[in-house]
């Protein structure tokens, strides 16, 4: 298990307003076309917390990506 945090981008369908964004205080949001992209440094449990919020709020999750420039391509997520 990787204890360190990693930077994630999370793409959600639609524009999130102030109410829904307040559920993700640790993430920075920007609008990208018809989508919202949330970015932030998360450890594993924070990541799963975010995913649970996305589920609870009925949001449409389009993409989840870990930004890990220091890793070799293909190492994918932080799961070991």
């Amino acid at each position, binding site marked *: 298990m990787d204890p360190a945090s990693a930077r994630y981008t999370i793409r959600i369908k639609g524009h*999130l*307003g102030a109410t*829904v964004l307040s559920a993700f205080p640790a993430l920075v949001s920007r609008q990208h076309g*018809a989508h919202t992209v949330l970015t932030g440094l998360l450890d594993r449990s924070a990541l799963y917390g975010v995913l649970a919020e996305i589920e*609870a709020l*009925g949001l449409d999750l389009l993409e989840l990506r870990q930004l890990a420039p220091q890793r070799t391509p293909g190492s994918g997520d932080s799961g070991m």
Partner: protein
Amino acid sequence: MDTRRLIARDDLLATLDRASARKVTVISAPAGSGKTSLLHAWAGRPGQPRRLAVLQVQRDQDDAQQFWLALLSAVRHASARTGHAEPLAATPDFNAPAMVDRMQSELADACGGFTLVIDDLHELNSPEALAQLTGLLTNLPPNAHAVVATRRDLPLRLHQLRLAGELAEIRAADLRFSGHETRELLDISGIRLSEAGAALLHQRTEGWAAGLRLAVISLADHPDPEQFIAEFSGSERTVAEYLVAEMLERQPGEVQQLLLRTSLLDRVNGELADLLTGHVGSERILLSLEDASAFVVSLDPERTWFRYHHLFADLLRLELRRVLPEEVPALHRRAAGWFVQHGQAADAIQHTQAAGDWPDAARLLADHSFGLTMDGQGQTVGALLQAFPPGADYPELALVRAARSLARGRLDEAAAHLAVAEAYAETTPPDRRRRLEVAIASLMLRLAARRGHLAGVTEQARFLASPVTGQSDEDIALGNDLRAVALMNLGTVEASVGLPDAERHLEEGTLLAREIGRPYLEVRCLAQLGFAWRIRSFATARRRCQEAIALAERHGWAAEWFIAPALITLAGTMAWTGEFDKAERWRQRTVQALQADTGTDVRLLVHIVSGMLQAVRGRRHEALQEFSTAEYLGSKLADSHALASQVTGWMVATQARLGRSGEARALLAALDDERASSGEIRNADAVICLAEGDPAGALGAVRDVLGGTAPVIGYVTLVETHLLAGFAHRQLGNLRAANQAAERALALAESDRLVLPFAMTGSRELLEALPRHETAHAALLADILDVLHSSSPPTGEQPAPPDAAELSASELRVLRYLPTNLSRREIAGELCVSRNTVGSHISSIYAKLQVRDRSSAVQRARELRLLGGGPHPLARRSPHRGDAVSPADP
């Protein structure tokens, strides 16, 4: 009453109907997909042919027992069988397999088709409960069908059902509204919208039920619906957020305030809403909200409690925190105050934690953990304990931690927490200190009982018997809970060392428990009461045991460990009065109920009763083994127990009767003087003398007993003494004295109609020689001889087993696993067959043995000696002979 506009989604209802031909239907779709509405529509449809039990899982349900009790109560409610049983009560000791068995038999008993509906199953956070539910779902009785609804796929291991074609699934895509259904919803809600507008709405919401329903609320009184749709579909905002904001904006200010401020409650009523909003009239608003939308739902037929749709509530909560962040802690505090006042401790603690008032939350949890645990919410206590910030030190919690360690059998850990709690108690103001001290002393008693270190504990704890004084009603209620537990713990320890105060304290505990409505405590006190009376009065002991067992049965606790003292005491009293077969059945029920937590003294009694029952059937080797085990268990207790000399005496006497007088003498020689002079040991000495052909020695041995100077456990010892004296006189040729001795034994035995001493000593000939005209106890004599004739040592074999041909070979194979702890799945694994096969064998075993559950099947099988044939799969836990079960090793 329900004026929410639900359209009849005929296609979906038909899908559900088709699905119910299979065993299980899983509806798995995201929040707001319309799962609950669909289930409501399906369940409430006129002409629904099957009976329905509907359970909505509580938000964040951590507690397996609460889940199961809610499910069982839904089933009972639906099968209209509430009349026959007490309201379901939880116990601090949740027995999950028994609960699953009970569910199965409740479902099987409900005649006709039965559907179990479990909504919001994703809220169940207990992996154990999910695993148990998997067990239930894969072994549903033939008449039952289950529908579960969840937001996400859960680890329900249902692949076997899927492979067998017994699993139907309905997923998000199936739940989406079609264009046609969207139109229908708008029409039925009286919304005039062009075809193009309706199509746009359908497209924008993608047929998502919550989106459509929210849109309908805003559209209902909108001056320009087309304009609304155009703006909505022009916005890129997410559907739910956009529509909830629109909807809130269109509500009057008081409604907005109410929705926001009460969103932090899992359920709300008018009073609570008034409290949080600071206005009156909330109930009227809640009622009209329910009438107007599917987002507010009442929880009871009287419509006093409401809950919000989860997705809706989550959005409201976020909005509350965003726009009124400074009010949030105060709102939680107000809610906590209300829940405290209304005796709903778990909610109160949760809101106090949410307000960030950690020391207050710790104090509340310490105060209520006893009560919550008694209410069967031990797992909730665990979850609340976990919610405290790690690293922070709240000494109040030491008490809670001690109780939990104790419940899990971590005794050293419990002792350490208790030491912290004790040190902390000294620093608190006197009124609070008193309560803490009572709680600590009560736990100390439990700890001492678990460790068998009983010396001196009761003196220290004597103060427990006096009431805890408090001012407010709440203080009195807390004090009563605590006092009832304290009386139970005190009485239990006193009973196990044979102190007479036990009866008084347990009587008081029983009455108090009844008064404050704690059936669990009442059963435990009653069970211990029977146990406490076992030495002084058979009749009282028996009555108390029967009361305890009847009450336990009414609550479904007949096989729980805490009823074991009553079961074994009842077995013992029946053995004393010669009802050996009944005694054996109660003894076997005790063995089923025994658990690590059942005290050593109860296990000890189980071996004594086993020994008695073996001895009266002439199985002396087996009897010796039982008495020796009892002796060993007794030696592990720090103090000698109440029946110690009896056990030793019978062990020695049995040795002698087996012709091992040398060993018997050696055992006697090892006893200290005090023990050696007791009536029970004198009797044993007499048995040795008689076995050695020394009747004069035997008379000498019991002289002090007959003279009344030797201490005895009770008059039962004297019955035996007179009989032994009778034997000695007979051997000496003094038949007149022998008859007199037999008559004295009968006279003593008359009041309780004792039979056992006559059977244990093999007094048949002695009694038969007694001329009928010389006895004043002819009726008793006849009864005793009846018993002795039917139970006297079978010269050859035991009675032949009854015809077991009714059970098939494969049923017999399954049957032999029933006394083990293996689940149906595990049995299936052992036998390399499917769980369904095992399930159907078990159903037919139950039918053939005419029983309703696993433990009575085992009991019946034992009576019929069906368990003994052939090498047993788990030989170490099972009998080699047909009727004897060796209880688990100490």
